[in-house]
């Protein structure tokens, strides 16, 4: 019997697949089992990085599916400010698998958070589960509750009628309500809405078992609502802005991304309708030596985003990677000082980070 490795393709060997390839040739995918076209309804959710996918889908003329649409005659600036079209519904950033699961449970009627709304001193009401969806908050509790009802209806419709759902896993570190375990996108009172209160909120870093379990439950729920639904999972390559663990943020990032990557892998193995897109590997692989990160070693450069998106379309659509790479001029070139000229990414986590930095200066 010959050694089984001799039957493997070049992509299985580091030297041929990575070491002997230039950065712009690196492609950590084999042929995808899923392909979608411009007619299919593609929905998305996830962390900040997920917005690159929604933008790229729209820019390339795919049917980016939005069920919570902006009213007519809004300017693009207003649409963005009020969270329209950033994701398929106005749920804001969804960082953890538990957050995704609870959103689905709320949409399909199984879960009602005990501590969701917060009123500021001016009487404006904020939804702590999507704190930046209205920049100044809702004008009243009536408006907040009515808007939530319509939002959850839009989420239900999204799941029931989409063809493909792309979810970018972002974090394991979470803030939860001590009352009922509601998970918030960011720590309440840190940079956005809410008042931090030790008695009401607790930090929790999801384990691999929890992350995987919640993600499986979310997938089961979505598949039950829409048996045709195909799901693409990705892991955000963006490191943590901050950690609450008593260890270095780099270790915390490695833990978080490892858990998320394992959870994604588990789902691909477990479900036929779940697929993986390797944005994490494309951006962070050692061959790139950080070339797709800006000087802060956290923001992904436009070149990195372009490369990831080109490969995404090359594998999941009929587009060719080479053609799209050429047309959009990607490639890991020189490191950018900052991610310029790109449309701004709406990111709850960054808002928290900015507020934290400001409070330390003052």
């Amino acid at each position, binding site marked *: 019997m010959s050694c089984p490795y001799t039957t493997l393709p070049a992509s299985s060997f580091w030297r041929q697949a990575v070491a002997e390839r230039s950065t712009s040739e690196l492609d950590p995918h084999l042929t995808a089992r899923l392909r979608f076209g411009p007619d299919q309804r593609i929905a998305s959710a996830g962390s900040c990085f997920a917005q690159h996918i929604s933008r790229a889908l729209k820019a390339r003329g795919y049917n980016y599916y939005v069920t919570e649409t902006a009213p007519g005659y809004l300017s693009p600036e207003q649409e963005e400010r009020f969270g329209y079209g950033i994701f398929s519904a106005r749920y804001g950033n969804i960082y953890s698998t538990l957050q995704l699961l609870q959103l689905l449970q709320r949409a399909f009627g199984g879960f009602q958070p005990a501590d969701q709304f917060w009123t500021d001193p001016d009487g404006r009401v904020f939804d702590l589960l999507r704190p930046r969806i209205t920049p100044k908050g809702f*004008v009243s509790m009536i*408006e907040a509750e*009515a808007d939530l009802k*319509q939002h959850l209806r839009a989420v239900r419709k999204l799941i029931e009628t989409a063809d493909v759902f792309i979810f970018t896993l972002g974090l394991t570190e979470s803030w939860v309500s001590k009352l009922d375990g509601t998970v918030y996108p960011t720590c309440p009172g840190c940079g956005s809405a809410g008042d931090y209160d030790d008695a009401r909120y607790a930090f929790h870093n999801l384990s691999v078992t929890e992350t995987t379990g919640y993600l499986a439950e979310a997938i089961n729920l979505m598949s039950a609502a829409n048996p045709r639904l195909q799901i693409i999972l990705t892991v955000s390559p963006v490191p943590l802005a901050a950690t609450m663990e008593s260890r270095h943020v780099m270790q915390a990032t490695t833990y978080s991304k490892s858990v998320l990557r394992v959870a994604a892998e588990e789902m691909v193995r477990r479900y036929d309708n779940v697929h993986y897109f390797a944005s994490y590997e494309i951006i962070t692989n050692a061959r790139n030596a950080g070339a797709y990160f800006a000087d802060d070693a956290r923001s992904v450069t436009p070149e990195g985003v372009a490369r990831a998106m080109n490969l995404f379309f090359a594998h999941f659509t009929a587009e060719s990677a080479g053609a799209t790479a050429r047309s959009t001029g990607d490639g890991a070139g020189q490191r950018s000082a900052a991610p310029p000229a790109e449309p701004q990414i709406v990111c709850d986590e960054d808002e928290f980070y900015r507020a934290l930095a400001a409070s330390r200066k003052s």
Partner: protein
Amino acid sequence: MDTELETVLPVYIVGDSHSLPYRNMVFRERWTGAWVMARTKYIPGATAREFYNPATGEFHPDFIAFLEYEGLVRNGRATHLSMDEVDFSIAKAVGQAVRPPLIMITVGEIDVRGPILQLLKDSHDFVPPFATTLPLLDKPLVPWDIIDEAIEARLGPFIAGLDQLVQAGFKRVYVQSVVPPTRQEARIRELQKYDCPVSVRTKLVQAFNWKLAQKVRSVNLFMIDRWSDLTEGDLLRPEFDFDGVHLPPKGARLLLETLIDHAIDSRGLVANHPRYELYYRMACGLDPFQPAKSNAA
């Protein structure tokens, strides 16, 4: 044959087509029995947004033309405050009031029915920041802040213009509230080329008036409103639905009576010190248009 001459209190009503129901309206006001006469100017397509341009400081040309035609402005100044001999002589000759004139501006309905309503159409509803009896439909919501921004964009220039009028001495300017919209859905479809439920349209007018009243008050002026008389359950009473857009003259009369009531109750606003000065100097046998001699001279 001697004919008894009676003075008439003119009310100058200028603006969009909602000024039309006042045309040729004459009646005796209920407190003193004095004649009130509406003098109107219809400016086709007049909107709050285009009433005044804060960037250039210019009013709608038809509005200024109307004030000039009525003798309320001459050489760019309010004639009732003018110390100019010619203005004084004209006022004396025509027996014109030397008080700030009563002016009512009718704009806003086109602003509401045009760009703001398009945010809602038949697809959305919204929650206003005040209590209303109108239902909240089971439709996606336009956040109030977006509605607020849209109204603000229309009212900002208008209120800046009102402020300019007050600074120029026109302290008895009134603004007519936007009238409750028709219940006739077919008429709206005909006018707008799209559907919009009456509860949503009416709520939007309420919201516009809510903001308009606050802003008009902020420049020490007053909005004329008879919502509770014109509506039933917050919807336009059928007897006041004239043509699907305007009030019938009897509805306009209600609003004008409110203006007169307010004007009578607000006599403090009519103080006209420059004119009192002129009359005082005349009564003292002095030439009112020659400066008084200084003691030091």
